[in-house]
């Protein structure tokens, strides 16, 4: 059974200029002890998806279709207390921005002790656990670190503290929202290795979100590619990287900075912008930017699955 499965999820934000359809029929599965990567350009709805999973959608957002199942239970049917019990020990999250993720006016130790409020340990034991976890993410002098405030740490350190906080929960699934985007390349590699190691130790599943194909290829077992709030391709990492079926995925792989073997003056990008999510076209959402666009693309694309490798495209390449 999957730890987390999302079935046909649609999320809409109501705004003063009309409804913004942020997620359309998103389906994905995070099986036990697997790392699933979610890729997509910024603005394609990755954070919206996480907030929906946690039951923390902005007040103007709503789920208007589909289900989110955590360990087989529909989170829409959970009471506020059950939902709160799920956050942390069930689903732990590392957010995108390490700078703002910690409370600036409380010591790291206090914050790490506070999130253990469910445990029956004494305060001193909780502090020990916190220090231990900080050591496991290689924060030097962990006891002293507990007495310091967030602004006394660098971005990379703060991100590791955020990871430590999530891991201290021993969650069933760890969600990491672009945990490396704010870091430089060396720190990025170190953070990825750390996550990989810790995931093995704890034996949790992981939903790893990034817009960086190289990182996903490095870390993940399965990949889900999102574009403008839709899943356009999904499969195992080997399938998606070696035999991409959707033109968008091929573009993403081609544009990944890590794949540029020779120095280029300008990194290649996919021409065009994300479509307006307030008025979605009837046909393929990627068509306006697709170099393979044909007349048939004006029609809604089929979901084509072969060997568990899905692509939502009229022109999906067969392998």
């Amino acid at each position, binding site marked *: 059974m999957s730890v987390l499965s999302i079935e046909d999820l649609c999320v809409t934000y109501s705004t003063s200029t009309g409804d913004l359809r942020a997620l359309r029929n998103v389906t994905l599965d995070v099986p036990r002890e697997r790392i699933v990567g979610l890729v997509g350009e910024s603005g394609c709805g990755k954070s919206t998806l996480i907030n929906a999973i946690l039951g923390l959608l902005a007040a103007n957002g709503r789920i208007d279709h589909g289900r989110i199942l955590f360990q087989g239970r529909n989170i829409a049917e959970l009471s506020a207390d059950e939902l*709160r019990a799920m*956050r942390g020990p069930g689903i*732990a999250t590392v*957010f995108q921005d390490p700078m703002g993720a910690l*409370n600036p006016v409380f010591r790291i130790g206090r914050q790490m002790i506070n999130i253990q409020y*469910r445990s029956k340990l004494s305060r001193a034991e909780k502090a020990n656990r916190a220090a231990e976890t900080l050591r496991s993410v290689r924060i030097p002098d962990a006891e002293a670190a507990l007495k310091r405030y967030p*602004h*006394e740490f660098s971005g990379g350190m703060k991100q590791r503290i*955020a990871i430590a906080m999530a891991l201290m929960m021993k969650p069933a699934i760890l969600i990491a929202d672009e945990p490396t985007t704010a870091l430089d390349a060396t720190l990025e590699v170190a953070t990825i290795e750390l996550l990989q190691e810790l995931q093995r130790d704890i034996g949790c599943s992981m939903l790893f979100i990034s817009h960086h194909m190289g990182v996903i290829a490095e870390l993940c077992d399965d990949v889900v590619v999102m574009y403008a709030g839709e899943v356009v391709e999904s499969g195992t990492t080997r399938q998606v990287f070696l035999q991409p079926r959707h033109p968008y995925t091929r573009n993403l792989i081609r544009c990944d900075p890590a794949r540029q073997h020779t120095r280029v003056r300008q990194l290649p990008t996919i021409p065009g912008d994300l479509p307006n999510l307030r008025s979605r076209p009837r046909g393929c959402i990627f068509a306006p930017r697709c170099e393979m666009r044909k007349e048939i693309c004006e029609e809604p694309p089929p979901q084509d699955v072969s060997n568990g490798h899905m692509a939502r495209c009229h022109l999906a390449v067969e392998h």
Partner: protein
Amino acid sequence: MLYYTLNRLALALVIVSVVMLLLFSMIYLIPGDPAAVALGPRATEAMREALRVKIGLDQPIWVQFWNFFTSAWTGDLGREVLSDRPVAAVVLEQLPFTMALIFSGVGWSVALGIPLGCWAAVKRNSLADHIVGVISVAVIAVPSFVVAIYALLLFAVTLRWLPAIGAGESGNFFDQLVHLILPSLAVGIGWVGYIARMVRASMLESMGAQHVRTARAFGLPESRIVYQYALKIAILPTITLLGVGIGQMLSSAVFAEIVFARPGVGKLVYDAILTRNYPLVTGTVLVTTVLFVLINLLADLIVGMLDPRVRSGL
């Protein structure tokens, strides 16, 4: 924290010195001869000249300023004209009444303003939020002396629940407290509105911050998130605002002390102006300025204690 404290302290000293300079130039620029004013129309030129020499008006201006400056720092604010008592002693005698009035005013505004602001923020856009908003604007808009007069008429004259005038029997703490209720309400009620609005705005901001989402994602109880994580940040600008607000409350205190016939610095300065008792006027202004600067220093230090980023100069 040490560096931050010294820094604030130095700033406070500079401000007090600048105020002294301003006060001194004001006295100097007031038209008319202080000696003539002090002695009245029937004094002879010789008597006036003698007084000028006595209080140093024959000296060059910078010597006069230096004398004023150094004696003020040592607590010598000169002697008042009517009774010839030291100004410092007269002001210090009245100061506790005004301090009690202002701190009770702050008490009202904090005790009512902070919970109302939090409540409005948590229930944003609800009926409760709108009601708090309307009340806030209303109490801000009504001048404190109007509140003072109406409160006096309603609670003291018509209903006779509370005493109308005076500061209460000396030594009887309860009586003094009862006498404080109406005047302090008059001084503090407008600030209930300011603080409620300020707390609401900064609570909304801190409730929307990333770290609040992190706290929620760890399943922390909502009450702890609101009253610990968000409020500790939201309270900071309010403390600074209150420090500044003390200045405005000092001027409301003048009205309150007159309307309720309470002793205090406001009443003192009012009477001093009516009788042209200039040394008493400047002395009172100087003492209240120092008080104001000290309270702001205290506000800065509290903010520094609560916010580690401020301490380390970020």
